[in-house]
């Protein structure tokens, strides 16, 4: 049945993913109403955090959950039956895993024509390094973003969290939606081989092109502008402990406005800051002087005073600032959901607001095996005895 509030209400996805990249891809689709059935097993849970922990709840909301032991042949047969009544499969094991289970695309698509399968892995399904062990930080290191994310002449710092997993998740959702579009037109399914390294390296495209065309090797820029000419530009210390405000001045008009807001201190009239080129050349001294002004004010005040005149400025926000941000609040970016074990939980919403098919938070992340009866009973038509038997056999485990 198509629920006309849900954009993807007619799509069912079997979700074999774990940790972040795969669950994030499936969460994006689940948020828009796809029925995502997450397969878990006590046997193989390994590094995934327990179902009642914040990390799991966050990345698996809106999904259903079943237990299925894929290390047993009966478990794999039941997985195939479930795939028979589904539109798509998402998985992010190292490539050998699904092959060893006989759950690879060429096998599955023989009995389920039109199947779309998204295989996400660190290095892709082919190539000498296909079975490399890789998590978000590994991919970030290989893609070059770790080396480049630091201050000039400073050792690499990198991004301290798995940003690449989000990028791979987004790319995964995009590729699956594109394949659905093609299936809509032609009836044909397909296999998607997503390498997280490739999804992430694509974001280094300008730097790769500069290398290919100009033989220029990108170097770290810290918070200085990367492609634009702009000064002052960066973050400036404000009143209080570890408080900062970003300010970006691109044009002469914006510079004049900044001078005005700062109260036109005498130094702003100096020749070395007279035009953009001189300001760029004297960036360090300029930043110091601007900071003399910002340190006298709260970061929020600096932002508000500059934004009033149309200057791009923004507080460097920590997690608590985000939770209390009036703009995010007005748009319900954080939202409450009921959770069977935790009561009420706060989750991040979605940065996509659809006018006709708003994202709904219909259920929280599943407890382990929460939807066994629905999936095995209702979708696959098993009797209660059968379900009981498979449970006792350690198949639904």
């Amino acid at each position, binding site marked *: 049945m198509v629920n006309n509030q849900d954009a993807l209400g007619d799509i069912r996805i079997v979700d074999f993913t774990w940790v972040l990249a795969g669950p994030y891809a499936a969460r994006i689709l689940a948020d828009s109403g796809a029925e995502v059935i997450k397969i878990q097993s006590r046997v193989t849970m390994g590094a995934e955090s327990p179902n009642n922990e914040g990390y799991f709840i966050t990345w698996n909301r809106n999904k259903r959950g079943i237990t299925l032991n894929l290390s047993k042949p009966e478990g794999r047969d039941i997985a195939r039956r479930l795939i028979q009544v589904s539109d798509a499969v998402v998985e992010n094991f190292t490539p050998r895993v699904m092959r060893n289970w006989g759950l690879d695309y060429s096998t599955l698509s023989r009995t389920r024509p039109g199947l779309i399968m998204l295989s996400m892995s660190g290095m892709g399904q082919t190539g000498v390094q296909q079975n490399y062990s890789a998590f978000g*930080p590994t991919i970030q290191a290989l893609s070059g973003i770790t080396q480049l994310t630091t201050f000039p002449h400073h050792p690499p*710092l990198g991004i301290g969290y798995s940003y690449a997993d989000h*990028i791979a998740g987004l790319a995964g959702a995009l590729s699956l939606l594109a394949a659905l579009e*093609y299936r809509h*037109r032609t009836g044909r399914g397909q296999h998607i081989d997503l390498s997280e390294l490739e999804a992430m390296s694509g974001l280094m495209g300008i730097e790769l092109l500069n*290398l290919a065309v100009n033989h220029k090797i990108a170097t770290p820029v810290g918070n200085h502008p990367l492609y634009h000419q702009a000064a002052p530009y960066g973050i400036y210390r404000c009143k209080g402990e570890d408080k900062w405000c970003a300010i970006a001045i691109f044009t002469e008009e914006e510079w004049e406005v900044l001078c005005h807001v700062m109260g036109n201190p005498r130094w702003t009239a100096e020749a070395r800051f007279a035009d953009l080129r001189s300001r760029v050349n004297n960036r360090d001294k300029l930043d110091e002087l601007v900071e003399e002004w910002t340190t006298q004010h709260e970061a929020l005040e600096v932002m508000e005073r500059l934004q009033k005149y149309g200057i791009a400025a923004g507080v460097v926000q920590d997690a608590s600032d985000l939770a209390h941000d009036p703009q995010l609040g007005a748009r319900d*970016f954080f939202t409450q959901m009921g959770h069977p074990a935790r009561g009420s939980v706060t989750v991040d919403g979605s940065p996509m*607001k659809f006018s006709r098919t708003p994202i709904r938070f219909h259920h929280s992340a599943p407890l382990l095996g929460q939807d066994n009866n629905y999936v095995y009973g209702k979708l696959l038509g098993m009797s209660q005895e059968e379900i009981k038997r498979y449970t006792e056999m350690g198949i639904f485990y």
Partner: protein
Amino acid sequence: MYSALQPVGKDAALSGLRVLDITGEMGMFCTRLLTDLGAEVLKIEKPGGDDAREIGPFVHDVPNPEMSLYFWFLNTGKKSLTLNIESNAGQEILHRLLETTDVLVETFLPGYMDSLSLGYASLSKHYPRLIMTSITPFGQTGPRRGYKSCNLVASALGGQMYVCGDSDTPPLKPYGEQSCFTASLFGAVGTLIALHYRHLSGRGQHIDISLQECVASTLEHVNVLYMYEGIISQRQGTLHWNGEFRLFPCKDGYILLSLFREWDTLVEWLDSEGMAADLKEIRWLNVQLRLQEIDHIIEVVERWTKRHTAAELVEQAQLMHLPWAEVASMEKLAGNPQLKERGFFVEVEHPELSSCFTYAGAPFKLSHTPWRISRRAPLIGEHNEEIYCGELGFSPHELAALRTKGVI
């Protein structure tokens, strides 16, 4: 129009989909993604060329609107039309284009499109099947909807900068225009979700995307730790938020090590070279202790890594399924053997320069409808004649007149 299958690129995922692209920096990558999947993207540039053409780096570092590598990368495969959408004649032409358009992507501040009667409310009356994707700094609603932003400001307000950098450095912006890339990915995803719904309902819709929210949505642990444990994540240098990974110096650069995965393997390895110091002691099997005394562990491990090259360590580690990697430069990335073997890098012809250049390739491989770059980024107004004369029926004379009047 979408229903009319077109012969060109008919085996692409989005063949026959027409996209009007009036995007700036925040959304150019969104329409690029749709182009690579086979959509026909008409990029609307202001007469004289888009502002983004002034952004470097440039070929041989010589500023030239046709030679911006920034513009090249973000606009491959698109068609370029020049059009002044603020003029009456320009708006008339835009409406004629909208009749055959499935998706409109724009990045103006909220209210601007309304001021030209091109807001979603009025467009949806004329074109009920139209999908309009708006990528803006803070979204279409809320007290700060009119605020200005850029990649840096989005990174700051979205919560990214605060957790990047070291405890004794200022907050740090991740390299590249990451907030624009992320927002563009959400833009493309949202567009295809709406397209799917259009098949079910026959109706288009408006998608409102906030750059700030796109950053705040892609912070892995930051919101989770705060919402569930009240922890405000801090900057901690190269140590991954959960302590599992860290960078170490080696003979020829830096490598990323997993510190706690397969602890025994790591200690045995150090010990085999006589470098394990006290880490063999049984008390270190306690993960909590290792986290508490992490500085000591780092010191011991660092003594060892400094005696090796990154390649030596990574090769051996991967044999043991440890997720280690060399901290690669752009040069290393361009030479990555796995990427090369999988054909990641693609050559794109630039006939005007009689050259081919190597571009980053597909973010994913679709088995039946491969991603592709169909051609280099367009020259300014390169497709004016094809679309305005060939499709809308303007004569060359009329086209010249429009040019004189500054409409195109």
